[in-house]
């Protein structure tokens, strides 16, 4: 038991040092990366480690006769949660979301410290001590609070009342419902039944399985399959079209969607909303190939109102590309990200 608690304490100290390093920017906040796609699970695990670490730490400290009062434990843990959310989670999450988590954890801390009458008493004790001001230190604290609290609250309300020019919040639907069919270059495509004509095998037949087998490896650094190089001159069918799609992508799309299809292209920084990140499992991996075909052909202008068509710089690519070129680009996007398109059934 003791060994377990010591281990916990060790984890706690190491974790606190790591977090401290990130807060003071000694360690960049993306040092120990939260793996894309697995982030929630990894975060929960890490958090559980922290809790175990703190339990161990508090046990060790009380064993050494330096027990931390329950009051400070509660406050300390709450502060830890806030700091963890702000400095550990990368990419950063907005303040409004952090505020929500902060409130939830505040409630949790209260439930923890008020679990039994005795605990609650222990928790209240430091507050009562200050109110009663039996010792010199507490008297000093009481006077300090008397002065500081009104100033703080007054200042805070002044800050709130001061007119500010903050960016208005706009909630945009990223994937609006697609239409049943779309007309591109004079031909109508039914989204439910259309197929990518280039998803073919070496014999030139539509073959979902064959192309899926040639999709690059999953994981962070998605690479092409060994011996499935789209730049090989001997390629026929799928891989040849992947290469042609890639050429079109790098002549037209990568300026915004990025060399790695992650929405961080050369011009991306200027635009709002930022271009779509195809490597994010929430984009093309969730969508049908025909949905992408509709979005690429019609661009930002073609979006319904909830998709903010006025703010998008995505051109209707049918003005610049042929239907065949659009299908090839889509083929390339799935190949490069390593995702399979969703199917209707």
């Amino acid at each position, binding site marked *: 038991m003791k060994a377990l608690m010591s281990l916990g304490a060790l984890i706690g100290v190491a974790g606190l040092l790591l977090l401290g390093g990130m807060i003071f920017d000694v360690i960049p906040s*993306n040092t120990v990366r939260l793996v894309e796609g697995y982030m929630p699970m990894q975060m929960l695990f890490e958090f559980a480690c922290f809790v175990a670490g703190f339990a161990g730490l508090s046990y060790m400290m009380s064993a050494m006769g330096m027990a931390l009062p329950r009051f400070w434990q509660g406050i300390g843990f709450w502060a830890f949660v806030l700091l963890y959310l702000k400095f550990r989670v990368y*990419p950063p999450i907005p303040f409004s979301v952090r505020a929500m988590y902060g409130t939830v954890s505040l409630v949790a801390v209260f439930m923890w410290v008020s679990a039994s009458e005795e605990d609650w008493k222990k928790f209240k004790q430091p507050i009562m001590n200050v*109110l*009663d001001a039996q010792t010199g230190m507490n008297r000093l604290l*009481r006077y300090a*609070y*008397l002065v500081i*609290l*009104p100033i703080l*609250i*007054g*200042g805070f*309300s*002044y800050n709130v*009342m*001061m*007119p500010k*020019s*903050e*960016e*208005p919040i*706009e909630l945009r639907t990223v994937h609006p419902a697609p239409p049943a069919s779309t007309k591109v270059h004079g031909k109508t495509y039914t989204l439910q039944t259309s197929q990518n004509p280039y998803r073919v095998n070496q014999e030139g037949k539509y073959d979902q399985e064959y192309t899926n087998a040639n999709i690059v490896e999953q994981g*962070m*650094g*998605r*690479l*092409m399959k*060994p011996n499935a*190089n*789209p*730049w090989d001159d001997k390629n026929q069918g799928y891989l040849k079209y992947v290469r042609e799609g*890639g*050429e079109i*992508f*790098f*002549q037209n799309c*990568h*300026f*915004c969607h*990025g*060399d*790695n299809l*992650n929405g*961080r292209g*050369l*011009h*991306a*920084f*200027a*635009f*709002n909303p930022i271009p779509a990140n195809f490597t994010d499992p929430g984009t093309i991996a969730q969508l049908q190939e025909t949905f992408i075909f509709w979005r690429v052909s019609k*661009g930002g*202008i073609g979006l319904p*109102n909830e998709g903010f*068509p*006025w*703010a998008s*710089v995505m*051109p209707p690519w049918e*003005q610049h590309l042929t239907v065949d070129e659009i299908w090839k680009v889509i083929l390339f996007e799935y190949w490069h990200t390593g995702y399979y398109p969703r199917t209707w059934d």
Partner: protein
Amino acid sequence: MMDSITQKAGIAAVAAFGVVLVSSAGYSSVSAQGLPEGFKKGDLAPEPSAEMIEAGKRVYFTKCVWCHGVDGAGDGPGADRLWPRPRNFNQGTFKIRHTASGELPLFDAKKPIPGQNDLFETVTHGLPGSAMPSWEGILTEEQRLQVLAFVTTQLVKDRKFTDKQSETQTVLQLAEIKAKPATDESKKRGSELVVEKKCVECHGMEGRGDGNAFNLKDDWGFSIQPADWHKCWNFRGSRQDPYNVGNIFRTFSTGVNGTPMPSFADNTTVDERWDIANFVNSLCERDALGNPLPIDPLTDKPKINFVVPSDLVEGEIPTDMEHEAWKKAPKRYVAMGGQITHKPRNFVNRIDDIWVRSLYNDKSIVYLLEWDDRTKSVAEGKLPWAPTQVNIDIKEQEPKTGEGESIAAHQNNYTVYNDAIAIETAVKWKELPAPIKPRYLFGTNDQFPVDIVKWEADGSLRAFKGTGWDKDFEERDNYEESMKLLKGEWKDGRWYVMIQRPLGNKKDQDYDEDTFFEMGQYIPTVFFAWDGHNGDAGRKMAVSAFFYTFMNPPIPRETYIYPAVIAVGVVLLEGWVLTRRANKKKGKTL
């Protein structure tokens, strides 16, 4: 068992520490080997293993080939619409190094240590200001080393990283050179040195990269441009840490291979190099208090705030930029991307940001726009189309492989048009249910048009009504008298333009064409910029996203009164709690 390993590790660590100590003790400012100050001889790295090269080939043909090409000649399908062009690896010429001018960069397939592995750092952090992204988090450390093993052994064809006969390594010992603090004295000396060492001939009198802007070519004959010292986030070797003066010191010490930027290691002392680096670093844009701008980690550019606040002034709006009101007005960074939505598309936008400030009084609003443009461009002749025309048919450049046809080759050889800037605001924005706006490029339709005020370098200021991206502008003829150009000046690579327009009201103005500016409201605003020497005209331009002009209302008196009342209330509350507690202790109950 466990102990012996720890012991060994301990000995190794102590030994390593000893080596560092001894080696740094041997370092002196004037080298015995006749090397430039701050440099030391280095060893060539061993050749990477065959497996590594093979694994690197897979990385290369998935990620890099699209720009750098099958043979690494910098001619992939993406290359021809990029400027600067992707690196041609064949000659082994690399820009960002810790090695002396002309030498190969540091690369060791087994040592991904900052400061000791130039190519690894370039792949990791990317080259800001170019299309080369940061590959950190995309490729693992191992994959980054693998791809470099492939590039250095298979695609660098004219030189060999392991050839002891032909290659030397003279390494800048940046980690061991103590940085000189950026005192005023150091910066002043640096400012004198950049003139003395002729830096200003290329980088311009104010360091905006505007000197010699037409004649510079790289080793492959492509026109290139000197760095703009005011945009340190675009420094290729900034390593995602743009305000770090060490990066400037390194570039200045080693030169930039393949470009006209030489190494100054031979004709400056380390001390002088720090002075120059401190001076160059001090020029980079900072906030009003002189602090570095916050950099967005996702884009490596300054963070963007999409609200352009406008402050109220009593009486006339000052036209002098040095006026207190302008100095106090918040300055906003407006990022600009290329207009690649409608033909003719602008893949290479040379204006990548503008700075906006604004003031207003009871009648007008004034925008002060500043942006860096290396060349002052005023059209040589008349435009071959009407200025209101949107659908001009400028032939778009095909992405052709080959130096003669590519955008990079064409740069600086375009017909010169006017530099220009435009502010587009939404008309009738109050009727649009929030958050709906007209389309950012020239409005939606007749019902929801936009109001475009455009200034051109010939001194003209015109207003247009835009009713959709595919419709010609309507020029507004009665608007000229109500607008005013307060300033339009190009100086040392920077434009300063001050445009005044009426706030608009229902009585005097045309509600269907005018934007009405209202205090305390978010007015959708877009900025467009044209670089005349980039062939920018019509819709070939740089565009911003939607910003908001926000006219700050005067601070109401309540803002000062209520907090005071609240504070007094808190004091009373405290008194009540304390009294109650005291009474309770004494056993009294209220």
